[in-house]
C-alpha cells in the first residue's frame, strides 16, 4: 500500500520501508511514515497490529530486517547513545522499580542520561504525584504508576517521544492528566508517536493518525480529512411532527443547503441536528474489515 506524506517538511522521526518478523510471523511490513517536531501522530490499530514492534524498532530495541528508521536524523540501527539520550519512551507495561520510591525512580533514570539536578518535584507535580513522591512504587495504584511512567518519560526533556498505549485501562481522571501532558510536550516541540486502540483519544490528541493492521499501514492523515473523506457530507435533522418524528437528511453539496438548514433550525418541532461524518473507528473498520478492540 503506497501513500505520500506531503505535510511533513523536516521529520524528527523518519521511517522508510521497515519490516520485521518474529520467526515466520511478519509483524511489520514495509512501513513508511514521518513525524515532524511538535506533531502528535496517533498510531491506531488493534492488538497485534504491529504498533509495539514499530516502537521497539524506533527505540533501538529491535533491528529491522529491512528498511531504515531515523530518529532526529540518526539511524536507530546504529544503537547510537546520542539518539537514546534525546528520546523518551513510555511502555505499555508498568516497568518501574517497585521497591524504590517515585522520586528514586526518576532520579535513577535521570542519572542514566547524565542529569544530576533533575527537578523531581516539578515532574511529580506535573503528573499530580507531588505528595506521593517519597512512597514506594509498590504502594501506587495502576493510574499512579502510569502517571509516574509518563514523568519518567520526561526526565530528559525528550525531542522525540514514543508512547505505547499510555492511557490503557486508566480511570478518566488519570487518562485526562496524561493526555494534557502529551499535548504540553508536543507544544514544547517534541515529536510524539502515540500508539493506541482508543479511537476517541486518537481523535482528540493526534494531529494525524495512521491506521495499521497486520503490520501494514493502511492510511495516514489528519482525523478531520479522514472523517471528511470517508464520512457522508450531510446533516441529519429530526423534527417532531404531531405524535411522530420526521427525519430529514440535508446534503452539504446541495445548492440549496443554506435554505434547507435554515428551515430546519427554525422549525418549531426541531429535536436534533447531527453531521453525518464517520468516526475513526468506523473508517478503520471500513478500510481494514476489522475493529480496533480485536
Amino acid at each position, binding site marked *: 500500500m503506497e501513500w505520500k506524506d506531503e505535510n511533513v517538511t523536516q521529520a524528527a522521526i523518519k521511517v522508510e520501508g521497515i519490516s520485521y518478523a518474529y520467526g515466520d510471523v511478519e509483524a511489520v511490513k514495509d512501513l513508511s511514515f514521518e513525524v515532524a517536531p511538535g506533531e502528535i501522530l496517533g498510531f491506531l490499530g488493534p492488538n497485534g497490529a504491529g504498533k509495539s514492534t514499530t516502537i521497539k524498532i524506533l527505540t533501538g*530495541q529491535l533491528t529491522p530486517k529491512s528498511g531504515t528508521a531515523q530518529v532526529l536524523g540518526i539511524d536507530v540501527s546504529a544503537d547510537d547513545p*546520542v539518539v*537514546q*539520550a534525546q*528520546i523518551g519512551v513510555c511502555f505499555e507495561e508498568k516497568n518501574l522499580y517497585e521497591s*524504590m520510591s517515585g522520586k528514586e525512580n526518576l532520579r*535513577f533514570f535521570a542519572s*542514566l542520561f*547524565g542529569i544530576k539536578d533533575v527537578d523531581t518535584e516539578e515532574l511529580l507535580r506535573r503528573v499530580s504525584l507531588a505528595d506521593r513522591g517519597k512512597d514506594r512504587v509498590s504502594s501506587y495504584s495502576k493510574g499512579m504508576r502510569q502517571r509516574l511512567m509518563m514523568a519518567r518519560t520526561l526526565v530528559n526533556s525528550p525531542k522525540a517521544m514514543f508512547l505505547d498505549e499510555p492511557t490503557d485501562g486508566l480511570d478518566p481522571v488519570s487518562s485526562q492528566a496524561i493526555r494534557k501532558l502529551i499535548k504540553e510536550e508536543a507544544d514544547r516541540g517534541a515529536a510524539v508517536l502515540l500508539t493506541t486502540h482508543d479511537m476517541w483519544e486518537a481523535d482528540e490528541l493526534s494531529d494525524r493518525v495512521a491506521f495499521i493492521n497486520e503490520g501494514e499501514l493502511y492510511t495516514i492523515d489528519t482525523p478531520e480529512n479522514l472523517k471528511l473523506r470517508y464520512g457522508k457530507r450531510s446533516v441529519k435533522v429530526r423534527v417532531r411532527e404531531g405524535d411522530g418524528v420526521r427525519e430529514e437528511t440535508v446534503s452539504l453539496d446541495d445548492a440549496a443547503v443554506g435554505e434547507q438548514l435554515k428551515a430546519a433550525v427554525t422549525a418549531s418541532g426541531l429535536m436534533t441536528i447531527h453531521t453525518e461524518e464517520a468516526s475513526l473507528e468506523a473508517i478503520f473498520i471500513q478500510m481494514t474489515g476489522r475493529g480496533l478492540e480485536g
Partner: protein
Amino acid sequence: MSRPVSHLSIVRSILVKDLKEYGRDKLWAFLTVLVLVAFIVMYWVLPNSVDETITVAISPSFETMVETAADTAGAEVDSDRLDELVAGLEQEQGLAIVSVESAANIEALVAGDATAYVDGSQTIVVPKGARPPQGMQKADVNIGIVFPDDFLAATASGEKTTVQVFVDATVPEEIRVAMVGIVGEFAYAVAGDALPVAVPGPEEVYVVLGQDRLGDQVTPRESFRPLLAFMVLLMEGLVMSALIAKEIQQRTVSALLVTPATTGDVLAAKGIAGALSGLAQAVVLLAATGSLSVEPALVLTLMLLGAVMVSGVSMIAGSAGKDFIGTLFYGMLFMIPLLIPAFATIFPGSASAWVRVLPSYPMVQGLVNVATYGDGWSDTLPSLGALAAWCAGLFVVGWFILKRKVETL
C-alpha cells in the same frame, strides 16, 4: 558526537540501584544474614581436633598369654616388668588395646552386637540393648584379634600358628592390611627375628612432601571451611539470579535499554554487584572464622575470582528462568555441580578427574592449599589462572545469553 554520558557513570548508577534494591528485598536480605550467621556458627561448632585412635580388642589378654607361655616353659613371670611392657604397648600413639575374655566376645564387639566398657585394666562386654555399667568408659572397637593360647610359645619356638583378625565393615582396607602387618610384626618380635625390611626411625630422615601435618591432622573445621565459603558465594549467586530474573520479568531492563545505557553496561553492573556482595559476605565469613590470618591477599583474590565466576553463572541462571521457581530451579541446576569440589575437600584423597574440570575446583583447591597447607602466590598461580579463565568464559556465556534474552523481550 561523543557519548552524552560515560559508561562508567551509567554502570555506577545501575550498581547503586541494584545494591539498593537488593538491600530492600526483605526475603533475600533475611536469607543472606541467616546463611552467614548459620555458617559461622556451624564452623565454630565443628570439632577442631581429630581422634585417630583405633581401638583393638584382643583375646586373651597379654598377661594371660605371657602367663600361659611361662607355665609351658616352667618359668616365673616378673609381674612388674610385664605390666610395664603392656602399658608401653597400650600407649602406642593412635592405638588403644582392650583385653576381652573370649573370641565370641570379640566377634560380637566388632559386629556391633555388644559394647565394651573399660575402667583401667577391667573390661566388661555388654550385649546390645542391655544396661551399660556405671562409671565405666565406652570403647568403640573397630578391630579384634584372637590369639591362640599357645601363641607366644609357638612363635618363640618358630612353629606356625594362626591368628584371627576381625574387622568392622567400615574399617578402610589400608587399616585392615596394617593390622595384619602388626600381628606379623608382633610374631617376629616374639620369635626374636628382625623384619627383613629396614624402616628408618623418627630421628632419621623422612621425606615429607608439603607441610608436615604429623600430629596436626586436617580437622573437620578446616575441611568444611572451603565448603562454607563457597556456599556463601553460591547463596549470593542465587540472589543475583533472582534479581536479574526480576529485572527481565518486570521488563525494567527494557526501560534501561532505551536510555544511553547499553546491554554491556547493565551486565557489567550486575556482575559487579553480584561479585561485590558475594565477596563481602565471604570476607565476613572468613574473618569471623579466623581464616584470613594466612596470606589474606591471596585468599581474597581467590574469593574475588570465585565471586566473579558465580556472578557469570547467575546471569545464565537468571536469564533462563521464566519465574521465581524457574529461576530457583535453574539456579540450583547450575550451582549444585559447583559445590562438588567443595564437598570433595571434606573427604581425604584426590578428587576424581571430572571433579577437577569443574569451574569451582581451582578456587576451592586453591583455598584449601593456602589456608590449610600454607601455599603461597607462586604455588597458587595455576589455580588462579584456571579460575580466571573460567571466570572469563562463564561471564562471556552469561553475557551472551542475557543479551539474547533482553533482545527477545
